C-alpha cells in the first residue's frame, strides 16, 4: 500500500514538473521567435524611413549593417535580405550574406510568402541552417509629392542561425531541466520519506491482520501512533469477541455431537447385546423399551436444538393473546407432578387467579415447562418450590423459585449456556423437551426474548434459587392466592 501511495504521488509530481518544463521550453521558443518578429518590424521601419528601394546594394548593405546592432533585439548576428515580389529578385542583403547563401532554403519566394508571418521556415546560410521569418511590405517606389506614388511589393526576410537558437534553447532547457530535475528528486525523496513514515505502522498492522486465521486468532501489535493505537485497540477487542464466539460455536458443535453420540452409542450397544444370543421375549421387550427411551431422548434433543435455532433466528411468529397465568403454570406443572411426587417435592402455585398477561402462548409454554422441569429435577428431595407473581412497574413479575443445595460453581454465569449442567459429565436424568440435556434454560431465555422479556436468575439466602420474568399485563388485577413472599 505504501508503495502505491508513494508511486501515485511521484507520478503526479513527474507530470507536474514535466508540464512546467514544457511551458518553459515553449515560452523560450516563443521568445526566440518573438525576437525575430521584433527584428522584422525594426527592419521594415528602417526600410520605410530610408527609401531602401532607391538605394543601391552597397548603400543598402552599409545602412543595414549599421542599423543591425540597433534592431537585432537580442538576436546575435542576424541575416537580412530584401526581395522583390515582382520577380523574386534580391534587392538587398546584409554584409554577412554571400550570393551562395539561400535564405529561402528549398522553398521558392512564393512559398516563403505563404510561410511569412509567424510560421517561418528553415533556410541555409554559411553552411548552416538558419531560422527565417519574413514579412511582405509595400514600399514607395518613387519620390514623395508626385501624386500617386508608385509602390513596390517587397519581402523582408530575417534569419538567425539555428545553432544559435538551438544553443540558446538548449541552454535554457538545460538550466531549467537541471533545476527542475533536482527539485523533482528532492520532492520525490521527501514524499517517499513522509509516506514511509506514515504507513510503516500500517504495514505492521496489515501483516498482523494477514496472519490471523480462524484457527489462530491473536491480537495485533499496538502502534505508537495514538490514532493507529486506537484502531488497533478496537480491532483487538473485535478479534477477542470473534475468538470467544468461535470458541463457543466450536464447543457447541462438540457438545451437540457428544450429546447425540452418547444415546446413539447406548442404542447401538443395547441392540447388539440383544442380538448377541437367543433371548426370551421378555428380555427382548425390556431391551426394546430401553431403546425407545433412548430414541425419545435423541428426539427431544433434536427438537430442542431446532426450537432453539428457530427462537434465536427469530423466525417464530408470536401470536399475542390473553393468557391466564395461573392456569398456564398449572398446565405446565401437570406433566411433572409424578416426577415431583417420586422425589417428594412440594410445589405451590401462588400466582393469583386474576393475573392475566399478554404473551405468545407457545413461547410462554416453553418458558414455564423448562423452568418447572428444572424445579422437578433439581430441587433436593423433600424440598419446596413455588411460582408467584407480583405487580412491578406496570408489569407482572413472574417468579419460579425452589430450595436448592450446593449450587454448582459458576451457576449464575453459565446457567443459560447450552449443555451446561454444572459438572462436566453431562449426566442426564429423564430428558424431556430439551431439559435434562442442558438446553432447557437456553430455550426458556430465547423464548422470553421472543416475547420482548428477559429471564433473570435470582439467588437468595437459603439458598433459594429461581428465575424471574417480566410480562405485560392484559388486566392488572388484584393478585389472589397466598402471600407473595417466599417462606423463610
Amino acid at each position: 500500500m505504501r508503495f502505491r501511495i508513494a508511486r501515485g504521488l511521484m507520478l503526479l509530481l513527474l507530470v507536474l514538473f514535466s508540464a512546467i518544463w514544457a511551458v518553459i521550453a515553449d515560452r523560450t521558443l516563443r521568445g526566440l521567435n518573438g525576437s525575430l518578429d521584433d527584428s522584422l518590424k525594426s527592419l521594415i521601419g528602417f526600410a520605410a524611413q530610408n527609401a531602401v528601394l532607391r538605394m543601391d546594394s552597397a548603400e543598402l548593405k552599409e545602412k543595414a549593417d549599421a542599423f543591425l546592432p540597433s534592431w537585432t533585439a537580442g538576436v546575435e548576428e542576424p541575416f537580412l535580405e530584401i526581395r522583390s515580389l515582382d520577380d523574386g529578385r534580391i534587392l538587398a542583403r546584409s554584409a554577412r550574406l554571400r550570393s551562395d547563401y539561400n535564405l529561402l532554403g528549398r522553398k521558392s519566394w512564393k512559398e516563403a510568402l505563404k510561410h511569412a508571418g509567424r510560421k517561418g521556415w528553415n533556410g541555409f546560410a554559411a553552411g548552416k541552417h538558419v531560422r527565417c521569418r519574413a514579412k511582405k511590405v509595400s514600399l514607395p517606389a518613387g519620390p514623395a509629392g508626385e501624386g500617386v506614388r508608385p509602390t513596390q511589393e517587397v519581402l523582408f526576410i530575417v534569419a538567425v542561425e539555428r545553432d544559435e537558437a538551438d544553443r540558446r534553447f538548449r541552454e535554457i532547457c538545460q538550466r531549467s531541466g537541471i533545476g527542475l530535475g533536482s527539485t523533482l528528486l528532492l520532492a520525490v525523496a521527501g514524499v517517499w520519506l513522509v509516506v514511509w513514515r506514515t504507513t510503516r505502522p500500517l504495514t505492521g498492522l496489515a501483516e498482523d491482520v494477514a496472519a490471523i486465521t480462524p484457527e489462530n486468532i491473536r491480537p495485533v501489535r499496538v502502534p505508537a501512533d495514538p490514532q493507529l493505537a486506537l484502531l488497533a485497540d478496537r480491532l483487538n477487542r473485535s478479534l477477542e469477541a470473534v475468538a470467544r464466539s468461535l470458541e463457543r460455536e466450536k464447543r457447541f458443535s462438540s457438545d451437540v455431537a457428544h450429546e447425540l453420540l452418547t444415546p446413539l452409542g447406548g442404542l447401538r450397544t443395547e441392540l447388539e447385546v440383544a442380538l448377541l444370543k437367543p433371548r426370551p421375549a421378555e428380555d427382548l421387550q425390556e431391551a426394546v423399551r430401553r431403546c425407545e427411551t433412548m430414541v425419545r431422548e435423541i428426539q427431544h434433543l433434536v427438537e430442542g436444538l431446532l426450537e432453539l435455532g428457530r427462537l434465536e433466528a427469530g423466525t417464530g411468529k408470536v401470536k399475542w393473546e390473553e393468557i391466564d397465568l395461573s392456569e398456564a403454570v398449572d398446565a405446565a406443572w401437570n406433566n411433572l407432578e409424578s416426577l415431583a411426587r417420586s422425589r417428594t417435592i412440594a410445589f405451590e402455585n401462588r400466582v393469583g387467579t386474576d393475573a392475566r398477561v399478554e404473551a405468545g402462548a407457545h413461547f410462554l409454554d416453553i418458558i414455564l415447562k423448562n423452568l418447572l422441569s428444572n424445579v422437578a429435577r433439581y430441587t433436593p428431595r423433600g424440598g419446596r418450590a413455588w411460582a408467584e407473581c407480583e405487580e412491578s412497574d406496570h408489569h407482572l413479575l413472574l417468579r419460579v423459585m425452589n430450595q436448592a443445595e450446593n449450587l454448582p460453581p459458576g451457576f449464575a454465569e453459565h446457567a443459560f449456556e447450552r449443555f451446561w449442567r454444572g459438572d462436566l459429565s453431562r449426566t442426564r436424568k429423564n430428558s424431556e423437551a430439551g431439559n435434562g440435556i442442558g438446553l432447557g434454560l437456553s430455550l426458556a431465555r430465547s423464548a422470553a426474548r421472543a416475547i420482548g422479556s428477559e429471564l433473570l436468575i435470582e439467588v437468595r439466602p437459603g439458598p433459594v434459587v429461581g428465575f424471574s420474568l417480566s410480562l405485560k399485563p392484559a388486566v392488572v388485577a388484584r393478585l389472589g392466592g397466598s402471600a407473595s413472599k417466599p417462606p423463610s
Partner: protein
Amino acid sequence: MKVLLVEDYEPLAESLGKGLRESGYAVDVSRDGEEGLWYAETNDYDAIILDIMLPGIDGLAILRRLREAGRNTPVLLLTARTAVEDRVEGLDTGADDYLTKPFALQELLSRIRALVRRCYNRRSPNIEVGDLRINTVRRSVERAGRAVSLTPREYALLEYLASRPGEVVSRTEIWEHIYEFRSEATSNVVDVYISFLRKKIDSNSDKPLIHTRRGQGYVLEERP
C-alpha cells in the same frame, strides 16, 4: 478375565456390562469418576474401559492418576469426543486404545481381547500349553485334539491360568480376576472350580497340566 467399566450413561453402562459378562468377562461397573478411580486403585483388572466425561473426576484425570501411581492396567477410552485432538490427548495421557461412540460391540470385544493379550505379553489369540489349545476368540478349548466343553466360569479360570503358564497363581488372584467385586462368592469357590476343571482337562490324559502348590496356589504347566 476381569474388566472395569466406568461409564455414567446408565443405558450404555447396563447394556455394555451385560454384553461383556455374556462374553465371559467379570465386570465391575461404576457410573462415577471418584468411585471408578477407587475401583481401579483397589482392584487388579485385566482391562479398564473408561469414559472421559464423568461426574466428579473425568476419565483423563483418572487415567493420569493411575499412570502416575505406576499402575499399568491397559485402558481403553470410550467417548463421544471424536476430534483428532481429543484422541491424541487421550492416548498421550496414557491410554492404550481409544474407541468413539457409537461403536460396534464386536469391535470393542476384539480390542479388549487385544489389550488383555498385551497385558500378558501374548501376540496370538491362541494359547498353547502342551497339547492344550485355547482359542480366546471363539472361547474354545481342545486337549490332544479333542474339544473340551467348559462352562463360562470354568473357561475364565482356565484362560487366566493359561495366560500365566508356569506361574503360581494364588487363590485370591484367581478370585479377583474371575469374580466381580460385588460377588458374594468367596475365594474358596476357586478350589471347587479347579476340581471341575481338572476333571475335564486332566482326567483323560496321563500328563496333568493343572498342579497345586500347597500353601501358594495353582500353576498350569506341562511337566515331563
